[in-house]
């Protein structure tokens, strides 16, 4: 297991933790309150998916998923960068949800989200 894989893993988990914290924050709540019912439903489901990804990654054995991590290394790296950038502006709800969906899609290729 290379340091690169370990860093990639830590960065992914860190981005997901930051997304969870952002989606629980007063600023996000304000942005969501201004949206439509469909937006709120989408945000609600995304928050649950983010939490599940955190728990699933926390339980995954790094040695067992190292190959999948490496195969998706470039996509993971791009997706975490995009998500971290999106979290800087929580008023752009769609951008945050889209970038989170992108990362969750790649994580789902690496670990089973139950």
């Amino acid at each position, binding site marked *: 297991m290379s340091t690169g894989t370990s860093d990639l893993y830590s960065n992914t988990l860190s981005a997901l*933790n930051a997304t969870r914290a952002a989606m629980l924050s007063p600023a996000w709540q304000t942005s969501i309150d201004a949206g439509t019912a469909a937006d709120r439903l989408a945000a609600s489901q995304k928050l*649950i998916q983010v939490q599940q990804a955190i*728990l699933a990654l*926390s339980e995954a054995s790094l040695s067992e998923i190292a190959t999948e991590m490496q195969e998706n290394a470039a996509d993971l790296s791009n997706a975490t960068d995009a998500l971290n950038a999106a979290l800087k502006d929580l008023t752009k709800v769609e951008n945050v949800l889209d970038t989170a969906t992108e990362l969750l899609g790649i994580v789902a290729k690496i670990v089973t989200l139950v």
Partner: protein
Amino acid sequence: MKCGRLVFLTSVIFCIAGCDSERLSQFASFAAAGSLYVQDFHQLIAQASTALVAADSATLITARNMAGPTAVAQNAGQYSQELQKEDQLAAQNLVTLQMLDAQATLLGSYFSAITQLTNGNASSQMTTSADNLLDAINKLNPEVENAKIGGQPIKSFMQPAVNLVVAHFEVKALDEELQKAAPTIDKALTLQEAAVQAIATQLKADLGASLEIKESTDVINPYVSTAALPSDWAANRQAFLQADVAVVGAPSAQQAIKQLHNDFTQLVQDKNASIDFATLMSDLEKMSNYVGAVQSSTSTGGAK
């Protein structure tokens, strides 16, 4: 001349007895400090478990509030399924914390057994009891090494192992026990060091998530509401701010187990080492304060 030799011999005997007695006293002090550490560690695990579930529940409550109860009811099948998945994942994470707690319990019992051996009157029953505990720790060590917290295997936090050269001690029962036990206890303490670091990382993320909710529910929402400000608003705000500060105290727990491990290494390897128990006790007190602060922040509730 005879008188001189007698004085010299008496001095040597006195020194051996004195040194030995001091060493036994140091082992007894170490064991007592180890027991204190184990108590704090149990609290740390309890708080980590509480924080994990609190963060998970806070996320679920927020997700429900975000969509609204009507939308959740309209999508009941999907939300039920998600809730079951999350229960399963959270339970898996809690199992790991319980395993670490079990290892600490065994260590605590072993420290108590060592205390019995330091009084110089060890019975064969005490020795058997210590041996059984040692076997149990030995069996659990590999499982702990491969356990994962916050996504990282415990072993990824471990420092490289150093081979212990155990000194010879005059008290037979203690000497025999240390020759057998030192590598296992050293490994267990190395794992504890790694575990505390991993737990601190996860606790920070989980408490951070709960605190985000706490700021909304306890501080901001009541303040901007048209209703009268609740009478406990100021107290809630203070609790939120203090909890926020508690999150950064984790290094004290890491320092406490590091110091305990260092002192153990010195005690078993060097008969003449001078152990700084005052520093160890101070580190343990800081760890205790950190655990108390975390407990306070988790007990004042997360999402409402």
